């Protein structure tokens, strides 16, 4: 844990609300992205993020410095997000979703057309960000969670095992599969269109 973080936590425990704002500020995006990876829509993710932050504030005295503050915060966010899903009964659909993307066996990519790179500058465009978000949302939850923790938030394999309560081997398998599934979602096909001047359009039937 960063030294300044430890100081801030101490101040928050002493009732300093401004210290809490300062403590949370660098983690806002991380909390939001984590919530999005579970609930898949912006409004719900914001609700979850707010609830998680409130919970962090009320439980901060119970935080133990042997774990990373970010890991602790992410675990709270996951719990809140899953509670939100349970309330919405969305897990019924998620379980079907996850069955369709079984973890068993080797993953066979579906598209082998020459890859037309998607330049990162395209992320300036709302529709491209939305297309990527939609592609991520199309993955089963178990894959989205690992992808977001590892490739968006840069958590290590070890940290991911702690946050999700799964083994290292499972983290690696899900991460690998998530990346290849996402590639397939965004593959241009032989009629590729991730090119300048043309909006994204789905060229394959899935």
């Amino acid at each position: 844990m960063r030294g300044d973080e430890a100081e801030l936590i101490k101040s928050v425990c002493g009732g300093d609300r401004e210290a809490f704002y300062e403590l949370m500020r660098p983690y806002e995006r991380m909390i939001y992205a984590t919530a999005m990876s579970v609930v898949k829509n912006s409004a719900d993710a914001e609700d979850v993020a707010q609830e998680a932050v409130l919970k962090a504030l009320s439980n901060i005295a119970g935080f133990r410095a042997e774990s990373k503050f970010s890991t602790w915060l992410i675990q709270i966010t996951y719990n809140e997000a899953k509670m939100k899903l349970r309330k919405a009964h969305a897990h019924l659909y998620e379980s079907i979703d996850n069955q369709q993307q079984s973890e068993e066996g080797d993953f066979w990519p579906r598209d082998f057309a020459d890859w037309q790179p998607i330049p990162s500058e395209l992320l300036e465009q709302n529709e491209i960000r939305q297309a990527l978000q939609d592609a991520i949302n199309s993955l089963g939850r178990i894959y989205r969670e690992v992808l977001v923790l590892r490739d968006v938030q840069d958590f290590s394999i070890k940290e991911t095992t702690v946050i999700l309560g799964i083994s290292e081997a499972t983290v690696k398998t899900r991460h690998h599969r998530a990346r290849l599934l996402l590639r397939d979602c965004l593959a241009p096909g032989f009629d590729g269109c991730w090119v300048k001047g043309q909006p994204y359009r789905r060229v394959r039937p899935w």
Partner: protein
Amino acid sequence: MATIEISCVEVWREISNYLDEDVSPAVRERMEAHFKVCAHCTAVLDGTRNVVGLVGDGRVFQMPDGFSKRLHERLQKLP
């Protein structure tokens, strides 16, 4: 010494580890020899590397406008 060949399925199995530099030097060498002659696996590698770079870009999970302000306001309402 000749490089031992590796199949496409074995390459796909290791692509994520390859990108994370988490394969042994021997496997890396076999994969690189394979990429030189297999356009399909090169397409899978290029695409995977591309999407990993894109999702890691902070712009994908942009917070909605006013997110911080609303969070701050909610906290201020607490007793």
